[in-house]
C-alpha cells in the first residue's frame, strides 16, 4: 500500500487562515438572544422548553420542601434553558442519582492529589539540593579561604 503523502502545507495554511472572522466546524447555530431574530424567538423558546424542564419530585419530603418554589421554577422553565439544565442536574443529585459527571470529577480530584504529592516530592528534592550546595559553599569557604578557581 502506498503511504499517504503530506498535503500541500503552504496552500492549506493560506486557505485555512483566509477568513479571520469564520469559525468553521461549529456544532450548532448560535442561539444566544442577540443572534436570534425576534420572529424566531417563540419557536426557539418552545424547543428549549421541550428539551429542558425542571421536574419536581413525584412524592415524598422533597416535593413538600420544593413546593413553595413552584412558581419560580415555572418562570425559569419558561425563560432560561441553561439554568434549567443546571437545576435539573441538581434535582437529580438531590434524588441520589449517580450522574455521569461524578466519575470524571472523582478522577480529576484523584489526579489533583497525585500531582500535589509529586509537587511536594520535587520541592523536597530541590530543598535538599539547595542545602547540599550551601553546605559545599560553607565547607569550601572554611577550608581554603579562597573561593576563586
Amino acid at each position, binding site marked *: 500500500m502506498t503511504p499517504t503523502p503530506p*498535503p500541500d502545507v503552504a496552500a492549506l495554511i493560506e486557505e*485555512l487562515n483566509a477568513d479571520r472572522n469564520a*469559525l468553521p466546524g461549529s456544532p450548532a447555530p448560535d442561539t444566544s438572544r442577540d443572534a436570534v431574530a425576534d420572529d424566531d424567538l417563540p419557536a426557539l423558546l418552545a424547543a428549549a422548553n421541550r428539551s429542558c424542564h425542571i421536574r419536581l419530585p413525584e412524592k415524598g419530603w422533597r416535593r413538600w420542601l420544593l413546593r413553595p418554589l413552584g412558581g419560580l421554577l415555572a418562570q425559569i422553565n419558561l425563560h432560561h434553558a441553561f439554568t434549567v439544565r443546571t437545576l435539573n442536574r441538581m434535582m437529580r443529585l438531590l434524588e441520589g442519582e449517580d450522574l455521569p459527571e461524578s466519575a470524571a470529577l472523582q478522577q480529576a480530584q484523584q489526579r489533583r492529589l497525585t500531582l500535589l504529592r509529586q509537587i511536594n516530592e520535587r520541592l523536597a528534592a530541590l530543598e535538599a539540593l539547595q542545602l547540599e*550546595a550551601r553546605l559545599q559553599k560553607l565547607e569550601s569557604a572554611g577550608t581554603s579561604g579562597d573561593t576563586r578557581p
Partner: protein
Amino acid sequence: MKLAFVAPFFGAHAAGGAEAECRATALHLAERGHEIDILTTCLLDLQHDWNVEAFAAGVSADGPLTVRRFRSDPVDTQRFARLNLAVQSGRATPEEARAFTADHINSRDLYRWLADHHVRYDRVVFIPYLFGTTLYGSRLCPEKTILIPCLHDEGYARLPTVRDLFHRAARIVFHVEAEARLAKTLYGPLPGKSWIVGEGVDTVLQGDAARFRKTFGIGGPFLLCCGRKDASKNTPELLRYFADSPAVRRHGLHLVLLGPGSVSLPPQAQGLIHDLGFVSHQDKFDAYAACSLFVQPSRNESFSLVLMEAWDFARPVLVHADCEVLRDHVLQAQGGLAYAHAAGFSATVDWLLSHPDAAAACGQSGQHYVRSRYAWPEVMHRWETEVLA
C-alpha cells in the same frame, strides 16, 4: 581543539533552551575528543533570584566537562525591572540601554579570569546573546569568539550593544535561516562569518502513550503544549483560542500543558485544559507519544527543541504563523500547519483531526526532517567542518 563555553547559567537542572543547548553541545563536542571548559556563574537559572547563589565558586566536573564557576555581581533588581520594561518596549534612551547591559548578569571574577587565560583556548563560545557574560565577555577575545545568539525579534535585539556584539564576533552560529535573516535585517550583512548549523536533537526517543494516560487520568484525544507558560511564550492567547474554538468541542479535544509558570484558565474550558506543571523527561516523552497534535504558540523562537521532539514522535504540529522560524520549519518539513488568528486555529485543528491520514503523513514527514537535519551526528559534522575549521 581546546574550547571554552561561556554561559550565565549552567547545569543539568538549569531550565531554558539556551542552557540545555549549551550543555548538550559541549558534551557532544567533548565526546568527539575536544577539551571543553565551561565558564559560568554560581547562579541556578534565569527564573531564580539573581542575587542568590546556588553553587560555590570553584572548579568541578560534569562528565568530561570542566566547570569553572565564578561569583556573579550583585543586581539591583528593582532598577533592573524598570530598565527591562523600557528596553523590552523598544523605547529605552541610550543611557537606559547602557545601564541595562551593566545591570544584567555579570561576573567581574569571570572577566578577570578570561582576560588572563583566553590564550589557552583555541575558540571561546558565547551563548546566548542577551547577558552581560556574552556582551562584555566577548570583548576580551573577539578574534576567538564564536557566538550562538539564539536571536529573537524583540526589544533587546535592538540594543546598540547587541549590534556591536554581532559585528565584533569572529564567527556566528545560527539555528535556522529565519534567524540569520533577522540578524541581517537588524544589523546589516555579516559576510563570511556566519553558518546555519541548527541545534542537536536526541532522536529515536521512546515514550509510552498508555502509561501517560494512566498516570495522569487523561482519556480521549488531546493537544499538547510544552514549555514555560507565560505571556512571552504566548500561552494566554492559545488558551483563549482553544476555549473559543468550535472545532475543539466538536472533536472532544483536550489541551495538556507541561512546563513551569502559571496562567489563568478560561472558565468556559474548565475540565478540558489539564495543566500538569513540571514533569519528568520520561513523562514528557510519554505525552508526545499519547497526543493527537502538538502546538507551539510562541511568536519568539529561535529553534524550538520541543517542536523537534514532537516530530521525532511523528506527531503533526500546529505553530503560530507570526513566528518566522516556526513557519519555516513547518513549510520545509511539511510537518503540520500554522495558524494566524482564532479562526485559523479552529480551522487548522479541524482540518488535521478530520484528515487523520494526511495528519499522520505530516507527522512522518516532520520525523524525517528532524532525523535527517538535526540528529547529533549531522550537527556535530557541521560544527567540525564549518564552524571550528
